[in-house]
């Protein structure tokens, strides 16, 4: 009963027998679902490492010069468990790099990208399954390099996550750890590029018959645009990293100037290279989260996404504009006023499509019938927290306010609301939503809700506290902020912010317990469609078989056909799957507005 188009796709993607040996099945697997889970595990482990580092920073700001409890003797035996200035700079540097490149990126892009893309577009696997496997193992090498950096004599990188030279050359950070971390960034970039090429190709070539671009679930749009940005801009970071390594070990002076190199290079060149990558990176990390919200929130509001085309157009606009706003990170470097003002204009412009995306989500909930299951709580939480992050960005994209706020804790609070709250809580939204599909079991709702409230309130107060501290002028990255008289009044604010951070960290235990208990223990089976969702992955078994779909589906409607009275009359359900044929079905409206 298959259509000619289906037969063509079946021929292109024949069903292969699943691997039988343990190694081929779980370790050197080319199955996108297994690779997705491998990225998930690798990312979650480093999320813990990055979280512990964050707790060390918060401890330092609450109780400088006091012995670090629990871990002090273990991690810092030489200083009697007290964090020293040199340790501190390594701690905040590695916290940033690990969270961005080795924790959130693998979960948000590696795990969801791999697991979801073929399932959501109706394909049997990625376009290049072997490349996919290489991408993961390359990533694992980069994580190994990070661990190796921790074991070196002078410790890991200490020049800040932005790695600005000349501090990041041997003038400022002589240890081999800094080189290993730069190398790790390069290697993880290679992994991301392989993944990106694969994602872009897969979405273009392997969409099931009928899956037009305007029927793609928003998660797919987010991941696809992210992959395009990755493919274009990660190589820029890679080249900057190589030039930096040459400066460090081969005597070149690309980025060294000042007394060490009177006829030397230009430190600002590095900043341009870094931020040409670095600002798209912000969108690389938020686009998948926006996409996830774009599918999760309609599902739980039981209402089609509001103005789907507007969201898609806005996401594309953001992707294009993301490349021309990066200069707002460099307003105080002494750039030409005209250039700075141009960057400010684009920065202000990019707020419009971002607002459209957020307001579309709010309009989706408006008039819906919201069900507050854990994924929806996390989705709404992401929306609120990201909203704060986006709005506070207005103050930093503006040159005169940035004159005061640049490099203060206000910046730290702002980008944590977007990157930590937007991307991390966005990833959690996705994890709670697709967990039943990934593992075939249901997570405990009660633990999930406890986890949500600890996370939401914790993040709100921790990053809110940082915004307040920055508003009062406290610079970022200070080992002991209270050296400054004008910051001394913020001692209790910093301490309270730390208490919330510790609570936030402990609250993640609810997730760890829930996750491990469900994955490895007994839990109720999820069934095919755990949430009454409409996209293609919910029309196959949980977890899906090796070949994903017994028959390649034919897509007949947009991604959010929810609460259509006509569908209810025909099926008795309030939703219709994207690939579900209905006899005498009306012209679908979801996604066609």
């Amino acid at each position: 009963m298959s259509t000619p188009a289906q037969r063509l796709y079946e021929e292109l993607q024949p069903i292969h027998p699943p691997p039988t040996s343990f190694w081929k099945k779980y370790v050197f697997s080319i199955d996108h679902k297994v690779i997705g889970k491998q990225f998930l595990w690798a990312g979650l482990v480093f999320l813990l490492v990055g979280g512990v580092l964050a707790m060390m920073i918060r401890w330092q700001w609450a109780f400088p010069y006091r012995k670090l409890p629990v871990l002090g003797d273990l991690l810092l035996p030489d200083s009697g468990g007290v964090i020293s200035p040199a340790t501190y700079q390594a701690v905040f540097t590695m916290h940033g790099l690990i969270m961005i490149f080795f924790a959130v990126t693998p979960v948000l892009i590696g795990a969801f990208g791999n697991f979801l893309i073929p399932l959501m577009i109706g394909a049997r696997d990625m376009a290049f399954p072997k490349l996919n496997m290489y991408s993961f193992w390359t990533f694992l090498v980069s994580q190994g390099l990070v661990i190796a950096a921790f074991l070196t004599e002078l410790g890991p990188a200490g020049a800040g996550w932005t790695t600005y030279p000349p501090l990041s050359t041997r003038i400022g950070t002589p240890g081999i750890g800094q080189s290993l971390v730069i190398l790790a960034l390069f290697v993880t970039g290679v992994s991301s590029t392989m993944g990106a090429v694969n994602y872009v190709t897969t979405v273009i070539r392997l969409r099931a018959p009928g899956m037009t671009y305007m029927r793609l679930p928003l998660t797919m749009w987010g991941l696809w645009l992210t992959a395009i940005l990755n493919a274009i801009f990660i190589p820029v970071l890679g080249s900057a990293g190589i030039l930096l390594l040459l400066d460090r070990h081969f005597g070149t002076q690309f980025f060294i100037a000042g007394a060490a190199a009177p006829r030397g290079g230009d430190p600002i060149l590095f900043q341009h290279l870094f931020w040409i990558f670095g600002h798209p990176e912000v969108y690389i990390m938020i686009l998948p989260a926006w996409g996830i919200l774009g599918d999760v929130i309609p599902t739980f509001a039981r209402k089609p996404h509001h103005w789907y085309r507007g969201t898609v157009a806005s996401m594309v606009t953001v992707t294009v504009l993301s490349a021309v706003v990066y200069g707002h990170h460099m307003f105080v470097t002494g750039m030409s006023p005209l250039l700075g003002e141009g960057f400010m204009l684009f920065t202000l412009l990019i707020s419009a499509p971002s607002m459209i995306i957020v307001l579309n989500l709010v309009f989706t909930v408006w008039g819906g019938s919201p069900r507050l299951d854990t994924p929806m709580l996390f989705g709404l939480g992401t929306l609120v927290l990201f909203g704060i992050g986006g709005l506070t960005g207005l103050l930093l994209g503006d040159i005169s306010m940035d004159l005061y706020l640049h490099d203060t804790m206000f910046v730290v609070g702002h980008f944590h609301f977007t990157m930590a709250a937007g991307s991390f809580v966005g990833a959690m939204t996705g994890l709670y939503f697709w967990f039943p599909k990934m593992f075939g079991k249901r997570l405990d709702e009660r633990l999930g809700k406890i986890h949500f409230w600890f996370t939401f309130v914790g993040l709100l107060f921790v990053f809110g506290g940082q915004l307040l501290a920055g508003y009062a002028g406290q610079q970022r990255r200070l080992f002991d902020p209270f050296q400054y008289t004008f910051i001394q009044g913020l001692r209790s604010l910093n301490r309270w912010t730390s208490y919330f951070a510790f609570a936030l960290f402990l609250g993640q235990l609810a997730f760890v317990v829930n996750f491990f208990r469900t994955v490895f223990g007994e839990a109720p089976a999820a069934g095919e469609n755990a949430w009454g969702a409409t996209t293609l992955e919910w029309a196959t078994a949980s977890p899906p078989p090796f070949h994903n779909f017994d028959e390649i589906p034919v897509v007949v409607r947009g991604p959010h056909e929810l609460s259509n009275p006509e569908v209810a009359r025909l099926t008795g359900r309030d939703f219709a799957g994207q690939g579900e044929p209905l006899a005498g079905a009306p012209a679908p409206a979801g996604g066609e507005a």
Partner: protein
Amino acid sequence: MRRIPFAALSILAASRAGAAVLPERGFGLPRDVSLDGRHIDSLIHFTLIAIALIFAVVLAMLVWSVARRGRCASAAYDPGSRRSVFLLLGGVAAISVVVDGTLFVRTLEDMNGIFWNFSGAEANPAAVRIEVNAHQWAWTARYAGPDGKFNTPDDIVTLNDIRVPTGAPVVIQIASTDVIHSFYVPNLRVKRDAMPGMVNGLTFQAQVPGEYEIGCAQHCGPNHYKMRGILTVLSPEQYRDWLATAGAIALRAYDPDDASAHWGWEWRSL
């Protein structure tokens, strides 16, 4: 051989005129003691009020739509109507024009008229010119002395101690010898990176005598947190006295063999 000029500095430090740095009260913006900081402050207040309003309205919509419907109520089959899309676009357009537009226009005025207007500041005959050399982990400042030229024997050189008069525009040109630093005086609302191999400028006009802190805002190594200097704002008379005393000491302390003390560049137009 930096000892000699630094010995002179300690004499100067002993003769400090202003009161000690006062802590700030409360959580808000630090006291503004500059002529033009109010432009930044009022823009910050405008933006904070605007985003608080936007946030409150959107949050209220979200909370209302979650609260008003129970689980059983059926959702509207509504992927967006022409009306709701216009409403949304109208809201976004209004915010973009009113908020973003105000920010853009006012910032252009502020930057071109005041904060990046070095020629305007220097046109004032009373303008004070200072060169600052940032290095791990201190600020060295240089005043040109009576000859008006930098890097000559009559220069006054100070460490972590910059003095300026009230009521005159101050123009600072700043560079770094090692890594990137950032010159930051919260009470004046100014910040500018000190870049190795490059001379950057910043300008302000102080109004309230007293001692204020200079901080480093760019991570510059393990002791970044200790890179703290004092900016003393003096009355014009006090400033003149200090300049005369310091100039006399500087001439006596000048050591032609101390190459490390001979930094400084010809004043540039930025």
